[in-house]
């Protein structure tokens, strides 16, 4: 009996014992590093900065949105693809029949804010943080502000009035109302001015930092902001400064701008950086490659025997005849931009291939007979298709020269010099006409064709009616229904 008594006491002890250690037992520390203890060194801050750049390259964002909005919706291109239902959301936008359930717009609202939140979080985390050396603090905060400005612009150019987010929001601030467009631009300008004051020149970038924002990128971005606000004087002054500083020049051969040789080259002001990782067959955001190439690649090719065989791409973003006709005779840019049925791409190289734009079944190519060559990558650089290495050219020097020309055209200044510099490279003689704006608009269209600028150029200069179905109330696109439901303070655009 006594023995039993002992066992029993033991059993009861065991039963009650747990409570003493329970507090510790129920606190399992996470394997990931948490918020409070994160920014411990310069390297950590650098990694977090890469995280702020990361959304730039996302699949459901820059890789599709830029050209779907900038080219497909404009009069420069047709949607293309497998058929009318392939990415139907882009077709709806093109027909100006988009509604607030549009998938592209849903992503478009969310993705830039992810970048903004990451920028804010990083600024808050390292500003005055003793673990981070001061020069690193200054530069990273400057770059974060550049990106914050860039992301805000990506939002406001599509949606107009948007909520400005310039700090890490508390849950009570998640339903902040929209700001006026002028307020958004004011915030963007502030951030860019801060960035300009601290970022290095492109020439001073270390090799391993190529692709990071520079003073010139921030300046040029600010020029663009002035242009979008019709601030011609400010645009002219600042672009004069950038041109005068002499850090950029035009790539001698126009076609090279879009080849590997032109990447981060003399003409490059800001690019979204991509690389191909061998054997990485992951899709979209899971790799670091660009899917623009496979989206815009040709669906068919001619083989040696002249038979039509399967191509390598999905045939989206097909240049229109209207764009083709815009080129002057002898404009070298035409062949570097547009390719048609039976024509050779990369002629004379190992990558030579003959484009077929005949239909082989029943859809895809019936509406148009051209392909864009700018993001068409040669076979030797194609790796698992979804993972192309070519960078997205955000701002290049020719764009800046043409802004300079446009600003001066409005101000009555010397618009011809920058314009002619661009024309000369295209093998064209100096401009002869006297209609400055007409000349600038023409030059912008052909110089920057298929680079996702056309739609924005049309709507910011009041020429939206060149697009079928456009009216001024379509200037800003519908805010996603989901966002309206989540934030009752948002006011829908009159689309």
């Amino acid at each position: 009996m006594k023995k039993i008594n002992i066992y029993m006491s033991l059993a009861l002890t065991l039963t009650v014992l747990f409570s003493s250690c329970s507090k510790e037992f129920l606190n399992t520390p996470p394997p990931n590093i948490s918020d409070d203890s994160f920014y411990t060194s310069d390297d950590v801050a650098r990694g977090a900065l890469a995280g702020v750049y990361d959304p730039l390259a996302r699949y459901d964002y820059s890789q599709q949105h830029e050209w779907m909005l900038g080219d497909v919706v404009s009069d420069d291109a047709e949607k293309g693809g497998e058929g009318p239902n392939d990415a139907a959301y882009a077709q709806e936008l093109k027909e100006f029949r988009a509604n607030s359930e549009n998938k592209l717009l849903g992503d478009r609202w969310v993705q830039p804010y992810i970048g903004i939140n990451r920028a804010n979080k990083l600024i808050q985390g390292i500003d005055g943080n003793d673990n981070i050396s001061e020069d690193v603090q200054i530069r990273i905060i400057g770059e974060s502000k550049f990106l914050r400005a860039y992301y805000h612009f990506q939002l406001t150019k599509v949606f107009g009035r948007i909520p400005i987010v310039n700090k890490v929001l508390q849950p009570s601030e998640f339903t902040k109302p929209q700001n006026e467009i002028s307020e958004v631009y004011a915030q963007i300008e502030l951030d860019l001015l801060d960035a300009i004051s601290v970022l290095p020149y492109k020439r001073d970038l270390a090799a391993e930092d190529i692709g990071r924002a520079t003073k010139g990128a921030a300046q040029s971005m600010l020029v663009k902001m002035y242009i979008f606000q019709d601030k011609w004087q400010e645009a002219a002054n600042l672009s004069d400064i950038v041109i005068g500083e002499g850090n950029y020049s035009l790539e001698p051969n126009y076609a090279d701008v879009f080849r590997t040789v032109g990447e981060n080259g003399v003409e490059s002001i800001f690019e979204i950086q991509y690389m191909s990782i061998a054997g990485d067959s992951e899709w979209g955001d899971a790799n670091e490659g660009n899917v623009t190439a496979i989206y815009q690649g040709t669906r068919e090719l001619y083989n040696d025997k002249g038979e039509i065989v399967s191509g390598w791409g999905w045939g989206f973003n097909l240049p229109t005849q209207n764009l083709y006709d815009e080129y002057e005779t002898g404009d070298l840019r035409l062949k570097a931009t547009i390719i048609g049925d039976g024509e050779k791409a990369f002629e004379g190289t190992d990558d030579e291939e003959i484009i077929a734009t005949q239909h082989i079944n029943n859809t895809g190519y019936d509406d148009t007979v051209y392909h864009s060559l700018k993001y068409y990558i040669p076979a030797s650089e194609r790796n698992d298709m979804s993972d192309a290495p070519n960078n997205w050219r955000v701002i290049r020097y020719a764009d800046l020269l043409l802004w300079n020309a446009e600003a001066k055209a409005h101000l009555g200044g010397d618009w011809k010099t920058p314009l002619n510099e661009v024309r000369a490279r295209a093998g064209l003689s100096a401009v002869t006409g006297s209609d400055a704006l007409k000349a600038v608009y023409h030059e912008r269209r052909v110089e920057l064709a298929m680079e996702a600028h056309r739609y924005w150029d049309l709507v910011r200069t009041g020429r939206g009616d060149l697009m079928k179905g456009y009216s001024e109330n379509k200037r800003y696109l519908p805010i996603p229904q989901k966002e309206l439901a989540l934030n009752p303070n948002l006011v829908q655009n009159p689309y």
Partner: protein
Amino acid sequence: MKQLNTTLLLLFFSISIFAQSQYSGIVLDENNEPLPGVSIIIKGSLQGTSTDFDGNFIIDANEGDILEFSFMGYYTQTQKLSSQATYNISLQPDTKALDEIVVVGYGVQKKSDLTGSIATVKPEDLQNRDVANVDQALQGQMAGVTVTQASGTPGEAPSVNIRGIGTLNNSAPLYVVDGMMVEDISYLNSRDIESLQVLKDASASAIYGSRGAGGVIIVTTKKGKAGEGKVNFNSYYGFQNFAHSPELTTASEWAMLNNEARLAAGLSPDYNPSEYGVGTDWLGAISQKNAPIQNYDLSFSGGSDKSTYFISGAYMSQAGIIQKSNYDRLSIRINAEHQVKSWLKVGENITVSSSNQGKILESDDWNNLLVTPLTVSPLQSIYNSDGTYSVSKNQVNNPVAKMDNTRNNDNNFRVIGNIFGEIEFMKGLIFRSNVGVQYRIGDNHVFNPVYYVSPTEGNQINSLGKHQNKNLSTEWTNMMSYMTTINEKHSITGILGTSVFMEKMEWHGLTVTDLPTDDDNNVIIDNSPNAKIASAYGSFIEVNQLSYFGRINYSYNNKYLLTANLRADGSSKFGTENKWGIFPSFSTGWKISEEDFLKDNSVISSLKARIGWGQIGNQGSIPAYTQTTLATGGNNYVWGGALVPGTSFPGIGNDEIKWETTTTTNFGLDFGFWEGKLSGSAEYYMKTTTDMLLQVPVPGQAGIESAPWQNAGEMENSGIELGLLWRDNVGDFEYSIGGNFTTINNKVTSLGGANEFIDGAEYRNWGYMTRTVVGRPIANFYGLVAEGIFQNQKEIDDYYANSKDGIPSHIQPGDVRYQDIDGDGVADYDFIGSPLPDFTYAINGSIAYKGLDFNFILNGVSGNDIYNGTNDYLLNSTAYWNMSKTMMNRWTGEGSTNNPKHARMNAKDTNNSLKSSRFIEDGSYLRIQNVQIGYSFSDKVLERLKLDRFRVYVSGQNLYTFTKYMGYDPEVGGSGLDIGLDRGAYPIPRTITFGVNLGF
């Protein structure tokens, strides 16, 4: 501590101890033959034994104790012990419903004493089904238990839902096997199962606390019985084939439709339809006819009155009806129990199982191997004349090339074991301690060889992926139970216990590329030139849980029953101040038939009413560490042409996260009529989930990628469950017919805000297919309402009369007309269907005559909708892909059809394939789930062969399905908010098996 200890000791020892002595005897049946395996329990205790092979028993008991002798199919008999030491007991057969012993949480109860809602499946009903997975055998067996086999891939386990969907997240039930909590039972061999119970309401499952919110399935495996050893061998071999596949157009039909589409779009036709015949049977090319399925299991059991054992080994193997998919499993089990001392019993249950699964690409939105064979052109041959893979002209990957180059294999190795010790301090007072460990290693091996079909199709650089996950969980439960009867009228059982549970999951993997060969023998990491710079990943999570629980069962005069539970759970998943949740439950029962006014009623043989209420916490939905804002890697960018590892904070932590609570109220009635010939039960329940764990979407401007977990939503489920069984015999002819019926009404009552919805089921580039809003069942399909077809231009003009953008140029007669409620010329989105059924039902029956036996089960679902995703291709107006045969009935002119499924052909269509009700189909079905005919050889034959049992049978699974659904299989599953969307899942095969059961 000390004080408590003393108090408890005083309490327990206030009851005096008797001296025990040994009693023995023999139990005989109605023919005076000895009955082996009769269970003998000392009434009012948990102490007992069973008869050996010769019907003999020995038991330690006290004079005055009452022994209860029970055996399946016989009346239970009692014997009060006097000074006499030996007893001859004779049991009489019982034609009434058996009063089974039912396993409840941490104990057993007589079925007639239950107050909670518990359903039981007899082991023979499980074993009659020749299926790979025990869960599959549960289909249609019980009201309120919905089993959905979403994928027929060999080795794929079905999902089990008890009483509907309790939460937007994880509502899977908890499995308890021999006292061990496990996540699934795919490792179990169904022939090792002794009993299986489902605890449906909170009052029954509350004792398992937080992990039982989705209901609990308790499985007890077979134990050896004292007596001569027994050997059992069971085996079956069978063949599987496609039960149904969508009917497609032939090559010439498709060519004709394609021409029509081109003509409608102003293009010249491409084909001369009469040139083509039937065309290529792509599905046939990747499928395997008469795919074999086989199973062998051998078990040994027996023991002495001090020690019993059950040892089994089983091997099952199943080939897929699609090549490259297969499954095999080897499992062994050792169960034993030992009476070490008169007061100490110990035992162990150990299972080791190893399974292998070959997988193909399925349920993928784009290159799904169940979809590409349907959509690729029937005009295309599989190979070119030179033997290379042909390239499709409609950019569908060649299914044969894809299948040939699929090498994806999962290996799962599991060890699950527990040991327990039971100390009987005195009569009725037992302490039990159980330590269990389960360890699972899952290894996935994926190799993508180099192959070439076309520039967009194939693989230029081979890659090898090795992925491993390891899961170790440890559980230690200590429990004190006490059982007593006071004044023969008050019967009380109480338990008090603690449980500690630790789980650690760890995963890692890597991918290497560019191996010099595709030869399977050389596909190892070290052969890759980038072995040292492989892309690798890995992490772990750890979850701890601590629980205290107690229960009291009280019965007065065997008429009035009461159960009360209380459980406190602490979990590491919750916020600092919210670790603990306390969950009570109560239930009562009234055995009306024990009342004097019914006691001798000739019609009503048993009648019991039950009411229960209880609360359970749930944490299953949320991952670990949601309290904290965590950094995540992999948000990389490129600088200087090199990859720069980037980090970010995708979400924000919520340290206020706490338990989700499910409150259930249950009303039940159990009845038996005409001496149990008709028996059954009816139940009504209401289940409310509050503080539902939810990732409430946050506005985009917050910049948060992963919405924080919050206790936000509320949901209600209610339903009726009915089970009926008629069992009788006419001489030697025995038969039964039964069925069950279940309704589930689900409604979301809050999503944590006034004006919110949550979208789910993202599909291709259509966006989200389901939307969940307050006031509706979860995950309703959301899209345009296809109300008909524009028959003529006037209908189009009228439709767009008020449109500010005019008539779209592409709309022509024959196109789908979508509902426009406000008449503004813009089609309106609406809710277009619910994936949840109105009711589910099953009908089962059996016949036995002499050696012959026959049984069947039909299983049905009614009133649910399915979004048939594959019809995006098969009903497409462009005729770009192969088409459904039903498109032969397409619109061809005014009045030809107004069915929006059958719009006109048009190669440039942009209107007809929008996300709409056009692709919604009625998902109701009635399936002949299982039919089995067996023959058991007579005693004469058995005697000559020296066998106890010899039965042969033939069995059919999934023999036929009555349904209007056009896809492969109306049994479309899903989880969370992604339900009822048919992406083209592997269908469940039709299986015919031949089997044998042997025992000696």
